[in-house]
């Protein structure tokens, strides 16, 4: 969940425009600036276009407002499984044909599933955009979802889970860390799903998910590259315009319940080196939808959220930069070099997500360094920020990198599309990308210190430790991630653990 990388990726445009979208029979451009032009089809589908005429290629992405955080226990992973099934054919184009057509036309394609979105994309020569839109419109409404295909594909997904998580000690630790950190937030569940849920998932679950969430009024088309916006609008209307709308369920609010003290787990699996993750519950940028709910007095549950100022999330991004914004930042300077207790150490935070997130510190301790010493050192870094203002030079370096990064990002058309697609799908106005740099530049040293004091507290902390077991021969059925006796999870809640009290040498 490294949101920083994404949120920072923006091309800044000089105009900030109104963002009211309206439905219209004819493609009507609500507004246009240097970066994004948008309009809405009469069935509710949103179209966003970024013209970029550097190379004769185009990126086309269809984003759906559905992902793992929309799921509930028992069907975890269904969003991702459905994403796989989207390549399994319609009446018009049988299984595999979508990929064949794109390939024969010199395109690349793929899809990805996150907590808050599912998206499908093609990269292709700009005169082949129409083909992509035709195929995407077809599978938005006409997917076959046959059981025989499902039964094979679910096995592929299980192999994917084994590859990405079960056989990777650090990934497995991260999965269990998330599961322990969040109490009721949907982010506690892995995107790929629990293995038992994959074992029991049926084609009917996938069909139901498709029927519920895949409709033009729950989707956004983003096109970036060497195209004219008016051509995209015309083609989008031609192919998506006739698709029927559907009644999209309104998600109930799912605010993380208040945490009452530091939570700790250990993951003991065959491995060679330990690993430490420390995550503090942290706010994300407020969505309009949530703000409205608040006004209606429906937000009693979000007890982790105290009153939140708009600048706080930007200050948290700068805080992550002070700790880990490059090789000159504090974690490298103090822990990898300086004290030389960490082989590597990092900090990550991302301000754009549907739900409350985590400000995460992580480290691989050096060979002779106890994990307690590593934890103490990270806590000391947090304490230092809380008690001493970061100096101006440090902040300037963080900001210089943000400013440069927004120029470098123009080198990737794919990223430009991705950024606005993600913001829009999460429920944030894509215009915030244009304000990002200015808001970062406005963050003061005092604000960085304030958010550290407010959010990096023991009451918000979860600590996960990977404790390596010996790697013995594999014939003993010692299967990480599946055999639960191999993973010990102890979740203790202690109210008082003060930062300095946990030192251990």
């Amino acid at each position, binding site marked *: 969940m490294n949101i920083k990388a994404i949120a920072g990726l923006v091309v800044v445009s000089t105009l900030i425009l109104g963002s009211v979208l309206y439905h219209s029979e004819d493609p009507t451009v609500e507004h246009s600036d240097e970066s994004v032009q948008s309009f809405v089809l009469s069935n509710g589908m949103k179209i966003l276009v970024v013209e970029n005429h550097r190379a004769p290629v185009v990126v086309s992405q269809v984003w759906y407002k559905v992902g793992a955080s929309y799921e509930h226990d028992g069907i975890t992973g269904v969003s991702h499984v459905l994403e796989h099934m989207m390549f399994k054919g319609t009446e018009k184009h049988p299984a595999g044909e979508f990929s064949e057509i794109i390939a024969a036309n010199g395109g690349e394609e*793929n899809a990805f599933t996150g907590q808050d979105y599912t998206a499908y994309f093609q990269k292709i*020569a700009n005169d082949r955009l129409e083909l992509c839109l035709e195929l995407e419109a077809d599978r938005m409404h006409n997917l076959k979802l046959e059981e025989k295909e499902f039964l094979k594909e679910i096995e592929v997904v299980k192999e994917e889970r084994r590859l990405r998580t079960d056989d990777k000690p650090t990934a497995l630790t991260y999965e269990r860390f998330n599961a322990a950190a969040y109490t009721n937030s949907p982010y506690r569940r892995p995107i790929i799903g629990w293995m038992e849920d994959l074992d029991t998932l049926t084609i009917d679950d996938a069909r139901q998910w498709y029927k519920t969430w895949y409709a033009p009024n729950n989707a956004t088309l983003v096109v970036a590259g060497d195209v004219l916006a008016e051509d995209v609008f015309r083609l989008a209307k031609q192919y998506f315009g006739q698709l029927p709308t559907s009644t999209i369920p309104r998600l109930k609010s799912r605010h993380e319940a208040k945490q009452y003290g530091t939570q700790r787990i250990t993951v003991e699996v065959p491995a*060679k080196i330990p690993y430490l993750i420390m995550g503090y519950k942290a706010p994300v940028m407020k969505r309009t939808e949530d703000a409205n709910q608040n006004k209606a007095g429906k937000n009693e549950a979000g007890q982790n959220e105290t009153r939140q100022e708009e600048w706080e999330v930007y200050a948290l991004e700068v805080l992550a930069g002070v700790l880990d914004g490059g090789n000159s930042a504090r974690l490298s300077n103090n822990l990898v070099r300086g004290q030389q207790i960490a082989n590597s150490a990092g900090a990550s935070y991302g301000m754009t997500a549907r739900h409350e997130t985590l400000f995460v510190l992580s480290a691989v301790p050096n060979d002779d360094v106890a994990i307690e010493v590593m934890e103490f050192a990270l806590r000391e870094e947090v304490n230092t920020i809380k008690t001493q203002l970061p100096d101006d030079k440090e902040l300037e370096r963080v900001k210089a990198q943000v400013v440069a990064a927004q120029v470098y990002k123009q080198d990737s058309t794919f990223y430009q599309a991705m950024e606005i697609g993600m913001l829009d799908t999460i429920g944030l106005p894509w215009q915030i990308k244009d304000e990002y740099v200015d808001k970062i530049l406005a963050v003061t040293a005092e604000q960085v210190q304030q958010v550290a004091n407010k959010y990096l507290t023991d009451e918000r902390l979860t600590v996960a430790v990977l404790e390596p077991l010996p790697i013995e021969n594999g014939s003993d059925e010692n299967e990480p991630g599946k055999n639960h006796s191999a993973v010990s999870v102890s979740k203790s809640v202690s109210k008082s653990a003060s930062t300095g009290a946990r030192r251990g040498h």
Partner: protein
Amino acid sequence: MVINKIIRKMSSASLFCLLSFSTAVVATPQIQTWQTENGAKVLFVPAPEIPMLDVRIVFDAGGARDAGLSGLAVLTNGLLSEGAAGKTSQEIAEDFESVGAEIEFDASRDMAVVGVRSLTESRYLTSAIESLKQVLTLPDFPVEAYQRELNRMKLSVKARLQSPAAIAGDAFNKAVFGDHPYAFPVAGTKESLQDMTLDAVRGFYEKYYVANNATIAVVGNIERWQAEEIVKALISELPAGEKVPPLPEVKQLSEAQTISIDFPSSQSHIFVGQPGTKRGDEDYYSLYVANHPFGGSGFSSRLVEVIREEHGLAYSVYSYFSPLRELGAFAMGMQTKTEQTQQALSLLNEELIKYVAQGPEKDELAASVSNITGSFPLTIDSNGKLLEYIAMIGFYDLPMDHLDRFIENVRAVDVTDINEALKRRLHPDKMVTVIVGKQIKNN
């Protein structure tokens, strides 16, 4: 909000993404090239759209030059920014990051890379280039930094032992390349890192980080004269030195070999392969095109069709040729849960034998050529990709019209070329098979 999972598709991306068009004429960037006074080769492409510049300097100083001290190339490369011109690691990092410059250091099999991405506004660019020059020409190799980075490498080597993929990869290279330098992990081994010395690092730098052994690629929003000045500023104080001698040839395998390594993972990680092709190889295009429909094109490849789509046995299955200065590997790879290991491996080998014997179907080949040529513009649609491409062209002494002629070279490959190349170059009866995972008894 990062994309938590990029879901479908997989590893051989770098191989199957070189492609082009049947009807449209693709405008390829024109590479300007010259040699510096002290002997470095320069390739430059102006890219006026974005106010930024990429410079990448590639030395023939990769792991292939470790000469028995595996890890030496990586350690030397990594230490350049850990003390130079009297500055500490911290001061060097601050120099770059205070102007928003991004540096890159990397050492792989053939190449050692030093590079920077900077804004072209002169107050930033001048500083970034000066800092890069210092790490390139005046590294101090302080003993403190040497010890620290060596210790970090030792821990990384240890970490590889918890990854079945890394264990399988190392075992595969060892078996395929025998006593050739390509056999040894560029990251080093426990033993080689114990034998490491600071003198070896200094000696390696002095011998290989010289102008005659350097290729410089430049892409960005500058004029030719500016590119010349920047290159001069960077390189003129580097000794001319000598171009390195050729690497030994990679020997062909004489017999099949299967290596099974016991590991407590839920999947078996499998590699099957042999020495493959090299840059400038006369069969390069034939083999490249041949691999595409077999296991190089993701969803439209035979391996994915059979192993994944038909049987649901693996998430990721692929084949690739990894062309290097000398013969790099041809490899097929996949992971599958323990109980399915033999079934998946049999299918993989059946497909290989069939393909080498019969080659691609005509329409398969046509679809592949269409994909390769049609997607060629995607491989050069950003400064970053273009930089990587031209650095490769310069480093491997490929013709300067490589980009212009790529499409016609791919189109010129016919079924006969492919069938002959496959039979001549791939030997299913003499391949290395590596399986890392739980060993099933009585089977």
